[in-house]
């Protein structure tokens, strides 16, 4: 135990540098995936066929390719096309795009769960499309969407470790680097695991809070 604490004080500063990048990648790709996901979802529920089919196609392509391959594509192939990105930028964009498909499906399910009759009732008292969305659809959809959204956040936090495959020295990669140079595998990876856990606890509480809230009328 004492040895572990000594290792901890020694390695934590370096690992916290990894934590910083992990949080950066997670928040960056969370924002991007949320915005893209909303765009795909709104396109998907459109009554214009080409728009909804395009969105369905995009979602399927994104879902059908492993995240790691998407990351390689953006980091290694884009420069050949004249767009070079830093590893961090490529990680945020890659994970953001990869997760936008799951976000979109979640948002779409939330929007479609709202009874069509309510939308007609809103229209029949003179509400336009946007006011109907804002006053009737979204307030109810948000409640349905938040618990799965929280779960997606937890998965994104963990999947941010895939950024290590394109050289982003986030928490998992920092751990691996320290471990391979010091051979203190147990201390290092225990610390890494604890740090991930500490970061997911607020998210787990977030999910629980909104699951309880969604259960109420």
């Amino acid at each position: 135990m004492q040895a572990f604490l000594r290792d901890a004080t020694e390695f934590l500063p370096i690992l916290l540098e990894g934590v910083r990048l992990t949080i950066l990648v997670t928040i960056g790709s969370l924002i991007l995936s949320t915005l893209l996901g909303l765009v795909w979802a709104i396109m998907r529920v459109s009554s214009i066929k080409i728009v909804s089919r395009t969105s369905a196609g995009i979602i399927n392509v994104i879902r059908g390719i492993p995240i790691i391959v998407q990351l390689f594509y953006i980091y290694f192939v884009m420069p050949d096309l004249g767009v070079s990105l830093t590893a961090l930028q490529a990680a945020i964009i890659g994970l953001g795009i990869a997760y936008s498909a799951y976000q979109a499906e979640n948002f779409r399910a939330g929007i479609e769960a709202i009874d069509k009759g309510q939308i007609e009732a809103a229209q029949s008292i003179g509400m336009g499309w946007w006011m109907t969305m804002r006053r009737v659809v979204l307030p109810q959809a948000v409640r349905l969407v938040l618990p799965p959204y929280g779960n997606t956040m937890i998965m994104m936090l963990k999947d941010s470790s895939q950024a290590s495959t394109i050289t982003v020295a986030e928490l998992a990669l920092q751990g691996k680097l320290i471990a391979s140079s010091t051979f203190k595998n147990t201390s290092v990876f225990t610390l890494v695991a604890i740090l991930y856990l500490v970061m997911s606890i607020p998210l787990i509480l977030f999910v629980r809070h909104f699951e309880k809230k969604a259960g109420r009328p």
Partner: protein
Amino acid sequence: MIELKDIRKSYGSFEVLKGITASVEKGEVVCIIGPSGSGKSTILRCINGLESYNSGEILVEGQRVDRDAPSIVSIRTQVSMVFQRFNLFPHRTVLENVIEGPVFVKKEPRKEAIERARMLLAQVGLAEKADAHPPQLSGGQQQRVAIARALAMQPKAILFDEPTSALDPELVGEVLGVMRKLADDGMTMVVVTHEMGFAKEVADRVLFIDGGVIVEQGPAKDVLNDPKHARTQDFLRRVLHPL
């Protein structure tokens, strides 16, 4: 005040309305009866601009109903709709449901809207339910809230689409009672219904629709007691004596 001129409407290759011409005068109560799938709901939905129509013309107070024109908002604030399944907003209280249109669409001061909403809720017998949420109410109560929500827009006419069909039999009376009071107060109403007793007593005129055309129309007593057309006779016989 509502005029339909030779309205035709198709879903794909299926023609639902095959030339409907009719009018509703101010203060009149018109009941629309007819078998399931004959196009009754579609007529109401076209008047309110929830559906488009392929040809013909619908006028509300001389203004053409066009679902895709900006003028549809003003038409919808003049002609309210009450639905079979109530369609209240479950995330808002009864009072909020009633003031939603006046405050957010018509931009009335909130205080006035609330005052009128309370009066309307009292009028439909639900003053004490103002702060409840719709799912806590019975079907009959929900439908009365929906009527109060329609009235809160201060419409010139109200369209009812089978307002009692989703209710348990013992709750039908309380909703019909409210509607009868409205009719007595001179509200212009178009009511799709299977309640022949209500039609007989309250309607000024009855339209019998079958297969997308008006088969027979006239004063309620004539159409219901002494139908001229064989299809009307047959339909009424089946509705009044289901066994």
